[in-house]
């Protein structure tokens, strides 16, 4: 990549309305070369609309959209991308190899069919008709189609839905290989561990806006809460009543406490029960951070921010 500052895709103050619903409300988004950007957010946050804009499927009502500095509706820009959509029923009677050759024909310098198939783990399926494959196999074929054109930017919309753990791990490995080759990836996912495992940057959307952008660690750091786990004879009622405890519950014999002041609460716990065992303190995970962020956004929507279907 010649210049790491050149964005491969970008939304600037993008607005998209569907009737009375504002799906995107001035969204700002920059995808840099070679990075994996995870787009997170609850349903209706505007993720799909943002992707559709960057793919040139729809036009913004206001603001601008660029793909490699061009209008995404220009075929020259789209010759540099690969796409895997959430759902696409491909022709069931075509064989996997035929689908790959067809998709590769759209690109100037595609990968050889065998190479694309191996990368996506479908080399053994080339002769099989697409309609006879399992759901997970079909997703892998769609992934092979997405990467067969040697794209510089790959859009993966919920790629691992319907995959078992092993298939998911394999797909992650393949994505990491593509990134190592310099390919940028925009990933939307409902699995936070997927974003955690792959993403350089995380973009959280709510109400058609980007409400947080940063590394996974930065997102976690946004959340001050920590989790304490221990086995203690101190009663749950007593712990719940301490001023710094946000929440306390029992799971089996183990007590789970959420707090912003882990040090103070740990001291109190140890004072109250000298026999306390198996003490663990953890920063809250991405899941908590995500929930807290989107809950905050939920509580303070301005009048014109409506959730899109």
């Amino acid at each position: 990549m010649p210049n790491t500052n050149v964005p491969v895709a970008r939304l600037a103050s993008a607005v998209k309305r569907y009737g009375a619903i504002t799906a995107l409300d001035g969204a700002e988004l920059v995808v840099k070369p070679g990075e994996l950007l995870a787009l997170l957010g609850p349903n209706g946050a505007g993720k799909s609309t943002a992707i559709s804009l960057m793919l040139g499927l729809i036009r913004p009502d206001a603001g601008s959209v660029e793909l490699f500095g061009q209008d995404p509706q220009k075929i020259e820009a789209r010759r540099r991308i690969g796409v895997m959509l959430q759902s696409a029923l491909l022709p069931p009677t075509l064989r996997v190899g035929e689908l790959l050759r067809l998709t590769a024909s759209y690109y100037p310098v595609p990968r050889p069919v065998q190479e694309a198939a191996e990368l996506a783990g479908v080399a053994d399926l080339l002769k099989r008709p697409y309609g006879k494959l399992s759901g997970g196999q079909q997703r892998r074929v769609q992934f092979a189609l997405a990467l067969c054109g040697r794209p510089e930017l790959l859009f993966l919309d919920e790629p691992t839905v319907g995959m078992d753990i092993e298939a998911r791990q394999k797909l992650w490995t393949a994505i990491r290989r593509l990134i190592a080759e310099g390919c940028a990836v925009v990933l939307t996912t409902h699995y936070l561990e997927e974003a955690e495992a792959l993403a350089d940057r995380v973009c959280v959307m709510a109400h058609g806006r980007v409400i947080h952008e940063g590394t996974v660690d930065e997102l976690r750091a946004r959340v001050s809460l920590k989790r304490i786990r221990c086995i203690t004879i101190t009663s749950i009622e007593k712990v719940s009543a301490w001023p710094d405890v946000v929440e306390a519950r029992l799971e089996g014999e183990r007590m789970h406490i959420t707090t912003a002041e882990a040090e103070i609460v740990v001291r109190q716990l140890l004072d109250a029960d000298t026999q306390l065992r198996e003490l663990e303190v953890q920063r809250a995970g991405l899941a908590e951070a995500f929930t807290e962020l989107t809950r905050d956004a939920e509580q303070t929507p301005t009048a014109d921010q409506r959730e899109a279907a």
Partner: protein
Amino acid sequence: METVISLVPAQPVAMPPGRVFGAYVAEARSECIRYMRAPSFILPMLLFSTVFYVMFGVLLNHGDASRYLLASYGAFGIIGPGLFGFGVSLASERDGGLLTLKRALPMPPGAYLLGKMSMAMIAATIVIMLLILIGIFLAHVSLTATQMLALIVTGALGVLPFCALGMLVGTLVKGQGAPGLLNLIYLPMAFLSGLWLPLSILPPVLQNTAKIWPSYHLNQLTLAAVGLNHEPIIGHVLVLAGFTVVFLFLATRRLRRYG
């Protein structure tokens, strides 16, 4: 940082013209293969008119009647692949997300429609050749080489207005609703334009309104091809071309607006 980066010229990715052409060919080829492998899709298109022709043109009629019916079932058979080949597949691909994926991919413009068109043209040609074979060998209709060729060309090109009509229907309904609606157009239109029963035995009202249907004009062409219509055909060709342009315009407009 965002202000600095917006005006960077795109690095050109050259797509040689040969590869663009190859993409059109690949699309058409895939479209043909996928339907030739789907008997439930292809057989009704081939059998509808041929079975009718065997029944009415071979078993129940002889001589000039068989020749006349070769033209009218020919027209009936040509319309099917256009309406159904286009309408049913477009409706289901809009529904299933394949069209969206193709629009996002760098498929050359028009390759999708040209692919389906070639499929319909090949299917219509096959139908016409089957009918010609039945006409010659079973109904003993004598056809010159020129007449056969004229019929085949009429089939291959005459399917196009019905592709455009099928496409328009495919943009109006999604998924499973398409075959029903297409049959509601196909069968009454065939009847009202005299493809099943000669217009001369239909009520005068229907005789007079037959001209509004594109199928009537196609039938005039197939009749001319087998030597039963000696009037000039240019008017019918123009009407069919007009239908094609109007349907295509309406369909592409809907497709661009609503996807």
